[in-house]
């Protein structure tokens, strides 16, 4: 139990995928303009990441390893992730067309979100068990969503700030992300997993 808790703490705070490992920056910058979109993206990513880490674990353990095809890992994982993302996109489009619209290109781009592939590969690298993989994927996704939503909140506030013209838009967002990352340095040493 304690172990899973530590995995969660580690992935959400200490080794946050966005602010500490700098993975998944593309959607982090892209869909953080509005809080609603960020929340939607958070849920979509959480769903994809958890499902992707589970399926890729299964494929790795029950297909690639027995057949000694580990060298196909990357491509197999990408195929898996692409399928999961495709599925998510269809579901989101059906259930919430507005969210689908506002996520825009970033929804299919979860496919190439390095955080997703990163989680799958890191799981294998750490030889995590099935449950560990699932918790790891889930934690990473929650960490991603958490900072995405917080970041969206700050960006909504900064939007009305009197930022010098040359820093407006993406530059100030990147600076803010950098400062957030600095704040997350405070968690260093909290849990090492």
């Amino acid at each position: 139990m304690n172990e899973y808790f530590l995995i969660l703490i580690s992935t959400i705070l200490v080794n946050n995928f966005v602010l500490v490992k700098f993975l998944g920056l593309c959607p982090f910058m892209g869909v953080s303009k509005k809080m609603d979109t960020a929340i939607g993206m958070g849920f979509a990513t959480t769903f994809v990441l958890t499902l992707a880490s589970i399926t890729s674990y299964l494929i790795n353990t029950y297909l690639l390893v027995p057949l000694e095809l580990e060298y196909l890992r990357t491509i197999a994982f990408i195929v898996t992730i692409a399928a999961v993302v495709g599925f998510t996109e269809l579901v989101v489009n059906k259930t919430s067309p507005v969210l689908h619209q506002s996520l825009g290109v970033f929804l299919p781009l979860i496919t190439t979100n390095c955080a997703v592939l990163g989680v799958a590969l890191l799981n294998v690298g750490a030889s995590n068990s099935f449950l560990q993989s699932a918790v790891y994927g889930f934690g990473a996704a929650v960490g991603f969503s958490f900072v995405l939503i917080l970041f969206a909140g700050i960006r909504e506030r900064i939007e009305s700030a009197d930022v010098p013209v040359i820093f407006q838009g993406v530059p100030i967002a990147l600076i803010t992300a950098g400062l957030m990352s600095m704040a997350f340095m405070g968690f260093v040493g909290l849990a090492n997993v």
Partner: protein
Amino acid sequence: METKRLDTNQIMRQVIYALVLGVGAQIYFFGSSVIVQIILASITAIIAEAVFLQIRGVKIKPAIMDGSAILTAILLAISIPSIAPWWVVVLGVLFAIIFGKQIFGGLGNNPFNPAMLGYAFLLISYPVQMTQWPGEFISFSQGIDVIFGLNNVDGLTGATRLDDVKTQLMLGTQIRDINLESVSQLWINVGFLLGGIYLLLRRIIFWQIPFSLLLGLILMSAALFFIDPSQFTSPYFHLANGATMLAAFFIATDPVSASTTPRGRVIYGFFIGTLIVIIRVFGGYPDAVAFAVLLMNITVPLIDFYTQPKVFGK
């Protein structure tokens, strides 16, 4: 309810006055080099702000006259070790003013506490210089020597009590074998506490943040202490050491970067308190205040949104 209508400049000035006792205690125990740091920091802050505003083509005078840059500079200068080399404080203030404040549009627009950004930046970049406090009282001339590197003055430095305890615990020493007392830390904290009470009485800060911060700090440390007194220090230790009182009354209460709803302030303060203890105890940086404040700064828009007071008729 009848309040004298202070203006923003007067508020800033009052906060600076309220710092006097705490700074006085610092001077009493560590010598007057802290004054040198304050002056250095203030000059840097004013120059940095003036240059930035000049480039932006904004009027310089009103922005500098509001006193917020000097307040940031002072808070940073009294947080860092009084014998840190001169370039440390200069770099920290530059970072605080430029990246913490002006780049977002100046006073009122910054989502993070500038002084704490400067501090965190220094702590990450120069951990050695940032953790060496004077071990004893040093004279003014000695202080000048150390700050400007004119003479190599060894043997003056020592770790803070927080660092010390952390290191000893890491080495496996039991709490009961460690000397937890630190007269200087205690009196400095008392100084800031009294200054804070002055601000509360003048209604310059609201009670929610300091109160809930201290509450969070006490509850968290008490919980840990209750679990294992041999591993964790007591709530009293956390109250009397480090920048606890400075954080509670002067840093977390920076209105610009803090939550502004009544309930939001309670949540904001409480989590800063708990985070301070968690990072001090488990984290890699025993001087946890800066990180705790910055981390909660990030959550402010969210807290504000979800803790809006019930509007009349809704």
